[in-house]
């Protein structure tokens, strides 16, 4: 057991701006009282934005998590739920951070019905472990969020991130059938169910999707699954310009082949991925063997008209793309949503900044790791919004996230109303959203 909070002096070191009172020994003893053996973790392992929490807990059951959350709420402690810790800097910096609530011990498969193509899991299970279990039955959860399969299911839902398959396939927010959520008042509430079609009551699980753990902690979730494709094949198409890449990419998308991904890389991204140093279109086909072969033939026909060719490449390129946002030295990551037809144009616009950019055509999703100041970022947001889209700061320094609203568009009024209803004491991730009084 660590002794991180062995002296009262430790408590006084934490930032407490605007908080009604400091955390005291009684608070922590209350928390310790509900922790089972081995649940407590060294807080320094849970640093975020340079701040360590006073305490960290890794509960081993859903009920224990709910109990911890209840005590934290009663004691006015600020809680940051976390799983794979791959998206901690999505959102505003927290105004307070007292307790790290680690969900990774909640990693069981609760109910898997291969014949129904459904599964229910605890939220701390990694996507990797889940996909491995499903692959044994020839099935998978058809999502490919960045930075990779190390994300937990709870984190995946809370951030609602999607990858290159989005648009060709559904996202987690589409595949979720139901969820159980722990609330600051200690209750565990369910919505949806485990069947593939269900319109009973409000889809609370969709409300928690993308809510960044600010309204409750997702502890269990059920999903609709798909059969694994028998064949997967990837291709790189070297293009003379981003504009040409955009034209070809849209043409391929328009042909409705067995496409699972169409991604445009700018020259910087191409270089990082060893695809040369020019704009590139990557295409992935996934289906039965004969359908993939036919799709490849059609792809080559399309490219002949453009006097271009496709090079067969390894399927591991997609894992590399997913991890682009988490390379060493990357500080700022942005994601823009723009019309599919504007993806290459928006990437071209990003050429003014220092950093790689790439875009998934079907989702109209452009990612970039720029080295930019707040003003440039806001300028890019204006461009995205003029195209009818948005720009989200996926990750960034604390100082950048203090001056730039990471989200840009969202209905603050309704968000605040929901926060007031579900977390009136602002126990969960206080300040992460915005304009929520603490």
């Amino acid at each position: 057991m660590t002794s991180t909070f062995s002296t009262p002096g430790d408590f006084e070191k934490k930032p407490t701006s605007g908080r009604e009172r400091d955390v005291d020994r009684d608070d922590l003893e209350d928390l310790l009282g509900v922790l089972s053996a081995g649940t407590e973790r060294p807080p320094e392992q849970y640093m975020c934005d340079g701040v360590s929490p006073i305490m960290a807990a890794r509960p081993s059951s859903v009920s224990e998590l709910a109990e911890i959350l209840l005590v934290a709420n009663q004691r006015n402690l600020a809680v940051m739920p976390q799983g794979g810790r791959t998206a901690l800097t999505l959102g505003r910096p927290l105004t307070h951070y007292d307790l790290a609530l680690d969900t990774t011990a909640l990693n069981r498969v609760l109910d898997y019905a291969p014949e129904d193509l459904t599964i229910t899991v605890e939220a701390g299970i990694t996507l990797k472990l889940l996909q491995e279990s499903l692959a044994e039955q020839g099935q998978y959860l058809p999502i490919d969020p960045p930075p990779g399969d190390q994300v937990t299911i709870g984190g995946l839902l809370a951030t609602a991130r999607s990858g290159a398959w989005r648009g060709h396939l559904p996202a987690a927010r589409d595949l979720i059938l139901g969820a159980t959520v722990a609330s600051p008042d200690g209750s565990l509430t369910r919505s949806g169910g485990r069947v593939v079609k269900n319109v009973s009551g409000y889809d609370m699980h969709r409300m928690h999707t993308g809510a960044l753990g600010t309204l409750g902690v997702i502890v269990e979730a059920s999903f609709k699954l798909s059969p694994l494709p028998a064949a997967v094949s990837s291709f790189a198409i070297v293009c003379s310009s981003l504009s040409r890449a955009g034209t070809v990419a849209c043409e391929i998308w328009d042909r409705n082949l067995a496409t699972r991904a169409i991604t445009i890389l700018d020259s910087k991204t191409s270089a990082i991925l060893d695809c040369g140093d020019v704009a590139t279109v990557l295409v992935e086909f996934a289906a039965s063997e004969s359908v993939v072969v036919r799709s490849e033939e059609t792809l080559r026909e399309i490219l002949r008209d453009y006097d271009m060719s496709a090079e067969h490449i390894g399927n591991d390129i997609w894992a590399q793309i997913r991890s682009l946002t988490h390379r060493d030295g990357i500080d700022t990551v942005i994601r823009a949503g723009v019309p599919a037809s504007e993806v290459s144009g928006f990437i071209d616009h990003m050429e003014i900044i220092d950093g790689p950019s790439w875009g998934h055509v079907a989702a109209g999703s452009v990612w970039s790791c720029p080295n930019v100041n707040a003003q440039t970022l806001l300028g890019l947001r204006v461009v995205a919004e003029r195209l009818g889209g948005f720009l989200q700061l996926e990750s960034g320094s604390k100082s950048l996230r203090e001056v730039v609203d990471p989200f840009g568009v969202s209905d603050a009024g309704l968000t605040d109303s929901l926060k007031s209803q579900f977390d009136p004491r602002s126990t969960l991730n206080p300040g992460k959203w915005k304009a929520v009084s603490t």
Partner: protein
Amino acid sequence: MARTQPSPLVHDLQAALGIEAVLFEPEDLLPYEFDSSIDRSAPDVVVLPRTTEEVAAAARIAEEHHVPVVPRGSGTGFAGGAVAVMGGLLVVLTRMNAIREIDAANRLAVVEPGVINLDLQDALSSFGLLYAPDPSSQRICTIGGNVGTNSGGPHTLAHGSTVNHVLGLEVVLPGGSVVNLGSRQVDAPGIDLRGLFVGSEGTLGIVTAITVRLIRENEAIRTMLAIFSTVDEASNAVSEVIRRRVVPMAMEMLDQETIRVVEPRVNAGYPLDAGAVLLMEVEGLVEAVDQDSEIVIEACKSQGARDIRIARTAEEREALWEGRKSAIGALGHTAPALYLLDGVVPRSRLPEVLHQVLGLSREYGFKCANMFHAGDGNLHPTVLFDPEEEGATERVLQLGGEIMKLCVDAGGSITGEHGIGTEKREYMDWIFSEADLEAMSSVRLAFDPTGRFNPCKILPTGHGCAQGHFEPIKRKLGPGIYV
């Protein structure tokens, strides 16, 4: 000349929307007393706005006059979602029926809530595009209504329900403010208010524009009819197809009772002596369709299919689907009244639950026909009865409740696509705890603190159904209007 003296509410609405957009004479309100459910209640006033601004004005005026507000499309809902059970203002959105935009290159369209589902499909066909949700009532139901109930349809199996195809919503909130939820692109930042709103049955606001995602028509399509001697065989075939790693675009089952009614009227090609038929469709590239069809056929044969017919022409495909889509209408000719249920079970539990449904119906002395989305495990038992027969209505409602319990006991749900409305709100605590329902009430409060938007829907009594000066709803049957 108005015979009824306009109330201050009517007066204000007329000033804001124009006299012709406001109905308040009792005989004018009659068509708006019911939807396709078995509940019935008259609104005090009906408005037919043409613009978002008019909807917002109506919501503001309703707030000022402290009256309930109920949105309505074509009134095809089976759960009573569009019935003004506490009276008040009924906002009928059928005049807001413009397709504002089709952006074929980016596969999206922006439509007003009164657009008929099939009208959108027709408008898209020249672009080679589709809007995937296709409820059986698509000839008359509106996209706004589809959003309200998160409608499905036969092709939900492959493409998902309405929520999977809505990108963004323009919504008038209680009080009259206008907000945009979601975006024109997928995965907009923030809490998924769009996803929360779809299926909220008009309790959180009134949708005034919908940005929908479109999909491209597939290169090839094959429609097949597998004929079985028993419902068990057909149910097992559904699981067997999935087990062989093929998810068809649609897998619809019709049982013997339905076939015998539908076939003589529609000539769909269903054998009259079949115990059940499975109507299945696979789509994709030609190679995929060939391959998947073969697997589907083998799977059905392995479970005892005595024949499998394949539609060779578009006309034959149309005929096979016409049988499915006309089934409810055809059943309507065979009994004074029908009660169409909507429940979901894990598809692997279909055979046993169907047996129990039929057994229960026999116990109650009613005929029960089944035509449903077998691939999704989404049952639609349809009970035939005569409301003039003493006690029949009460018994049929009781049977409906018992069938819903069967679904819940099998690990399923009390509705897959029709919604809760008034019909099933008292069943909600069969599947949700007090804490679950309290959480849902919190959503309601966040959007609608006074609980005036579509009161007494979704949540059971005590969870947002305020008691006002209106008479509590009394279940009774309309004159043959609920099928």
